[in-house]
């Protein structure tokens, strides 16, 4: 068994142990293979942070292959608000040579490389980092004994990190017992043996140990730790959804798995449909029948569902569609993030088919956005698309326990008799249809038909030109009504300055952190976050007018003319040629540095881009 190898000298105090340093936050990147359970390490660190008033954000890539393959999990733990998963790692744990090779570039200079000396041969000439070899594999086997092989390496590493970051060991042990307790005495015994061996490894002989700053003020609020997909599933339950249908697709599937298990307890049903089209059709059927329903998917499924979404627009049926975006087009990048479904979300049906599109900006927001989507679908009797993405889906955050009394929605269908002269599509000022679901007795004995054909106020097919204009306007008008009710978008930084960054969805954290960094460097940069993408919030033009330069930061292609999907919509809506894009399509979330680099580079270029 090889012992800790120091690749580079480090100043160790005379007492033989490095000192303890107090830090605000730490970025730990774990790189291994997917079967090593590194996601479990990250998950425990995240949950521990949630329990100790530390903020946390994680970032994970999972291989698209069925089993095995390189996988990473990055955890950023800190006191105060953690906005992004961190550009560079302070600590890299490399389980294999390939992990070392692929991820060394993510470690900041002066950072700590912990590598498995049984597996990794680092470059001895690379003096940029503090490299500490730990015999992770053999130590784990030694600790557990028997035929354990190297299963449990993750728990060993968790023990090392617990020592290094002065983590609350009793709490951590409690969580391990809670999580593995159900899997039998043997399992929990091995888990604790590996964990304790890692903790006892005396990592402090080679590196500093760290403590996080104590939080002051707010503390004590109960936090829950989930990923974005869990938050959406629980949001659906809180929102009152009792029927859903979907087809499995990465990275959406875990939402339907949760709902399939949970809904029966609430008296609900989740159907695994034969295909994406059937799923949205079933959801349309349940919604028509009075139970506002949910379907969900990722990009390829949205393409398939587009016709039915158009039907729900035409028939004015409430419907919630969750789109957990991944890289496209076609099968694209199933396990990577992209924000390239904005256009299909807004426009993806034939004909003029206005619908509501909203995008959550954090894991917590996934919960509340889903509740709001149900509410808006019912209030405006139309489809609502929630644009989450792969990064949000797999990211783990600690967020405040919701107040149940406020979160829970009652969406009981109403079957009281209607009429006489009932007009589901009455051309009212608000333009919103008012359906009588099946089961509703009609006082005058005239029963309504809900149709995808253009119809008159009674729902009868009517292709008169004047009627079509009237009804198209009616369906548009109700979104205009919603627009008028929306609050102005959230501004981060002063309301005027040199540069305005506009973001939507999961990029809010890195965008705001970019603003903070730029302001700290004396630059007059602010950011505005758009939560509603159809209709859009009022006041955007006024905000833009208070800045010299405008950049829309989004994870999609800059297009033929140098701006992405939201930027195109903003340019079309506000005729402002100053709007430019900060885009990227590498399938990974924005790093703060990437935003600032492109911003600085583009600020050197002419302000107005004109198509040639």
């Amino acid at each position, binding site marked *: 068994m090889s012992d800790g190898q120091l690749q580079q000298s480090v100043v160790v105090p005379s007492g033989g142990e490095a000192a303890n340093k107090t830090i605000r936050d730490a970025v730990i990147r774990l790189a291994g293979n997917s079967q090593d359970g590194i996601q479990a390490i990250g998950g425990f660190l995240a949950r521990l942070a*949630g329990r100790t008033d530390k903020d946390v954000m994680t970032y994970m890539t999972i291989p698209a292959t069925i089993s095995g393959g390189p996988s990473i999990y990055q955890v950023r733990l800190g006191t105060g608000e953690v906005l992004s998963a961190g550009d560079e790692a302070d600590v890299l744990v490399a389980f294999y040579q390939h992990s070392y090779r692929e991820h060394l570039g993510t470690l900041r200079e002066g950072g700590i490389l912990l590598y498995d000396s049984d597996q990794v041969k680092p470059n001895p000439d690379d003096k940029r980092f503090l490299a500490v070899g730990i015999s992770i594999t053999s130590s784990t086997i030694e600790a557990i004994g028997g035929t354990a092989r190297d299963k449990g390496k993750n728990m060993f590493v968790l023990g090392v990190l617990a020592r290094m970051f002065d983590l609350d060991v009793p709490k951590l042990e409690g969580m391990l017992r809670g999580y593995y307790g159900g899997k039998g005495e043997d399992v929990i015994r091995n888990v604790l043996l590996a964990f304790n061996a890692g903790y006892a490894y005396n990592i402090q002989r080679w590196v500093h140990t760290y403590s996080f700053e104590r939080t002051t003020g707010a503390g004590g609020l*109960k*936090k*829950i*730790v*989930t990923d974005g997909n*869990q938050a959406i599933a*629980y949001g659906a*339950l*809180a929102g*009152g959804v*009792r*029927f859903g*249908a979907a087809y499995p697709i990465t990275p959406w599937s875990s939402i339907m798995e949760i709902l399939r298990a*949970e809904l*029966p*307890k*609430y*008296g*609900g*049903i989740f*159907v695994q449909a*034969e*295909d994406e*089209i*059937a799923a949205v*059709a*079933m*959801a*349309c*059927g*349940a919604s*028509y*029948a*009075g*139970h506002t*329903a949910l379907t969900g998917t990722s990009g390829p499924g949205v393409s398939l569902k587009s*016709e*039915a979404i158009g*039907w729900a627009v035409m028939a004015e049926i409430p419907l919630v569609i969750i789109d957990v975006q991944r890289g496209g087009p076609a099968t694209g990048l199933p396990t990577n993030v992209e924000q390239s479904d904005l256009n299909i979300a807004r426009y993806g049906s034939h004909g003029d088919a206005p619908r509501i599109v909203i995008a959550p900006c954090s894991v917590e927001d996934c919960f509340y956005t889903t509740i709001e989507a149900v509410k808006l679908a019912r209030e405006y009797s139309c489809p609502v698309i929630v644009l989450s993405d792969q990064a949000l889906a797999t990211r783990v955050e600690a967020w405040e326990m*919701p107040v*149940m009394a406020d*979160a*829970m929605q009652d969406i*009981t269908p109403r079957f009281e008799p209607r009429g006489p002269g009932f007009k589901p599509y009455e051309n009212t000022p608000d333009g919103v249809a008012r359906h*009588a679901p*099946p*089961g*509703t*007795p*009609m006082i005058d*004995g*005239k*029963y309504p*038909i*809900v*149709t*995808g*054909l253009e119809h008159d106020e009674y729902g009868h*097919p009517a292709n008169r030109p004047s009627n079509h204009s009237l009804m198209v306007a009616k369906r548009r008008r109700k979104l205009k009504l919603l627009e008028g009710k929306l609050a102005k978008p959230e501004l981060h930084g002063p309301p005027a300055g040199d540069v305005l960054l506009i973001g939507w969805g999961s990029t809010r954290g890195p965008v705001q952190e970019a603003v903070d960094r730029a302001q700290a460097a004396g630059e007059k940069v602010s950011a505005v976050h758009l939560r509603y993408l159809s209709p859009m919030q009022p006041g955007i033009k006024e905000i833009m007018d208070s800045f010299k330069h405008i950049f829309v930061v989004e994870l999609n292609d800059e297009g033929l003319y140098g701006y992405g999907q939201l930027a195109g919509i903003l340019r079309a809506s506000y005729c402002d040629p100053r709007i430019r894009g900060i885009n990227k399509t590498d399938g990974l979330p924005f790093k703060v540095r990437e935003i600032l680099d492109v911003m600085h580079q583009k600020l050197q270029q002419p302000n107005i881009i004109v198509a040639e």
Partner: protein
Amino acid sequence: MTPTLTDLKPVTDPTAPARAPYTKKELVADLPTWCPGCGDFSVLSIYFKLMEKRQIPHERIVSVAGIGCSSRFPYFVNAHGVHFLHGRALAFATGVSLTRPDLHVFVFSGDGDAFSIGGNHLDHAARKNIHMTCVIMDNNVYGLTKKQTSPTSPLGFKSKTDPTGAIDQPINPMKKLIAAGATFIARTHSQLPNHVAEMMEKAMNHEGFSVIECLSECTEFYAGAFDSAVPRKGGLFNQVPADHNVTDELSAYKLAMAAFPGYFGVFYQVDRPSKNALEAGLINAARTKANNATPTELLQKTLDRLT
């Protein structure tokens, strides 16, 4: 709080208050836009008679359709109805049926809707045994779009998309339905109204997915297509033999193999729990295990575990 899906009482709720009976006159809505002589008229008038006979509370009838001549059906019935997308009526009706045990759901479809664009949904509605009655009015041609080949058009049939005659092997609806696992499968002919009525009533009485293929002539684009089964036109109306065992899949398959016009009657019928019943079972078990907790209590408990 939002109720459970099992709170609604089934159609056959004996505690429902008695009400004045309705006549088929009250069930008539718009004048059908079908061509004179269309076979679909027959299905519609039999449907009216059947509803009148059964007296399902008026508001609890739902007719769902996709696209095609047959799928205009809901407009002609004065009841809650839906005109959905081409081929997707069965999936839509699945959403209605599973969430509303208090309704009787009918799907009206055609050969294009059910066997072509919606073929996948037919298979899965059948295997999942979704409780509803599906009537497929099969005219062996695309009529609404004015004479193109349908998935049941016989080989050699000349249409605008097969000017020299159809070359693609047609679907055998009965074989498809047996293979898919439908639990009630019948075949009838619109020109023999008593037989249609008998099949529809049997289908309605079936718990689960009941499906009828009704040969329904398109007088405009495929006149005389089914005359060979009409006795008054010199044809032979072969009823399913009296000794046929409807629970025997292989025998049903053999009946389906018969040359056109084939047999008419119930090919196959078995008792298998519907998805509706199975889902209700899951709900009841989960609710009991959770001590019938309220949604708020349930979610709070779940989130507490995530702290």
